[in-house]
């Protein structure tokens, strides 16, 4: 049903990014089709998180570009130049891309309900009551019905991360980015978050996921991308990449995490 469009939802071409003298991304080309789940694997420091953060311009690339739905992210093309957009325009673009962080980053001074309704109400101008109704639906969807009046610190890590997913969904994004969503969780809480993510994938959400959960990649991913040293060294269906990696670096990494 989905993913039949010729043009992918996300197109990344020639992306480069250096922090000081350290080259973090060294010419990344990547396509993500609508409705597909792409899992980014790789050792820490391989550039996975930076790549993800470039997709919604939380990180400014040094070269190359990211396109979402045919629209350049963070820049305006004019003749032979790319002009950086004003903050307001970038903010408008980000509203279509949800992001879930390793440390959840819920707003601790706001209740769960306010965490979820803040952006739809402030950015989209959805009336508070309507936003609250939608928030309750989303909470039920991530298995947290009735927790809307709690504050983030009263919830477990797994519950907080599910609220963070609901918060991202409330903006009805075209694309969801997950930056190691289960790495800060106790092992027993990982499953509940992965279950919600799998559920989202089945519902046709386009997702880019940085994770070390190989099992999730095998079960849910349409494409697995393996990064090392800022380059994509392997990419393909999980059955191929995970079962029979061609690259030595990928083999040693997979044997270490499996």
């Amino acid at each position, binding site marked *: 049903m989905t993913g039949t469009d010729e043009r992918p939802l996300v197109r990344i071409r020639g992306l480069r990014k250096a922090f000081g003298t350290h080259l973090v991304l060294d010419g990344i080309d990547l396509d993500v089709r609508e409705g597909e789940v792409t899992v980014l694997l790789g050792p820490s420091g391989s550039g996975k998180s930076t790549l993800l953060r470039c997709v919604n311009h939380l990180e400014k690339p040094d070269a190359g570009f990211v396109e979402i739905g045919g629209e350049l992210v963070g820049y305006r093309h004019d003749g032979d130049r790319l002009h950086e957009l004003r903050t307001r325009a970038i903010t408008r673009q980000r*509203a279509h891309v949800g992001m879930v962080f390793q440390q959840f980053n819920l707003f601790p001074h706001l209740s769960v309900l306010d965490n979820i309704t803040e952006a739809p109400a*402030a950015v989209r101008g959805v009336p508070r009551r309507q936003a609250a109704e939608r928030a309750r639906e989303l909470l039920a969807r991530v298995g947290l019905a009735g927790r809307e009046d709690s504050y983030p*610190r009263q919830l477990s890590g797994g519950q907080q991360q599910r609220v963070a997913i609901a918060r991202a969904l409330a903006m009805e994004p075209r694309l969801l980015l997950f930056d190691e969503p289960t790495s800060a969780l106790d092992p027993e809480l990982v499953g509940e978050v992965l279950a919600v993510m799998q559920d989202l994938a089945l519902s046709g959400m386009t997702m880019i996921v940085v994770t070390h959960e190989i099992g999730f990649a095998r079960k849910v991913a349409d494409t697995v991308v393996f990064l090392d040293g800022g380059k994509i060294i392997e990419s393909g269906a999980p059955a191929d990449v995970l079962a029979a990696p061609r690259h030595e670096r990928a083999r040693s990494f997979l044997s270490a995490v499996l």
Partner: protein
Amino acid sequence: MPQHDSPAAATAAPGHPPPARPEPDGSAPGPRPLDIRATDQELLAARLVPLRRPGQWISAAVLLVLFAMLVHTVVTNPRFQWHVVGHYFLRASILHGLELTLWLTGAVMASGYLLGIGVAAMRLSRNPVLRSLSFGYVWLVRSVPPLVQLLFWYELASLYPRLSVGVPFGPEFAGVRTAHLFSGILAAYVGLTLDVAALSAEIVRGGILSVDPGQREAARALGLSEGRIFRRIVLPQAMPAIIPSSGNLLIGMLKATSIVSVIAVQDLLYSSQLIYNQNFLIMPLLLVATLWYVILTTLLSIGQFYVERFYARGSDRGAGKPPRGFWQVTRSNIPLFGPARSAAVGL
């Protein structure tokens, strides 16, 4: 477990009993010989006696006596002239001074904080010129005593006899003679405002830096505007770090306004001085001013308590636990007022 006599008996048993039974190691001659150990039953039946701390009792008694002496002398020494204090406490001139102290404090804090937030924002900006200017400003103002600043602004006319508005290095549109502009009260307002701006800039900057950068990032990823992120996400979380120091600054400034008396601004202190310069009732009138300062700072402290509690929302893990009330906290700070249930916090 070995019974009462087993280890001692084992060592003493073989043959030669020592003639005078010397104490082992020669130390700790107990009331009982060592080999007659208490039975478990005896130990279990014994009453526990906590360590006596006579020093605590003695120091408490000494301090209470000293305190009683202080109260006694304050009440009975006729030279305090409490009836004079009562007589002047609500005098119109004192109340006018009080009014000036209050609104000067309010105005100085309000404009000082507006300026201070700007100075803090400059310090946190990416622009190196703004950052340096902000740093230089805070450095300069913090290096000069407020009293010196105050005198400086008061005497500004000798430096710049005329102030004017116009094009920089070009024609001027309007001007005014500085001596006319800078009355004592304006000098006080400007001097103290600049002081508060420098101090509050540091407080605000510290508060903003205390907020996890992930918060800003998450808000950006949601598409919130920068202004909204600052007002709704960053500032409320910076408040718990900002409020206590700001409360101290406010209370400090309420008292610091008394330095305006040196440039003849009729605040609370100067109003009292004007009266005692005529009738020489120095102590009673200083007490009038003191009592008013104490009352005001007490009220401000109570207000600070409630503001701090308001901004502590969401910081408590215990769901539904009612927040501690004002009297509970007071009692735990001053246990003499009644039994305290937990450790002292706040105020």
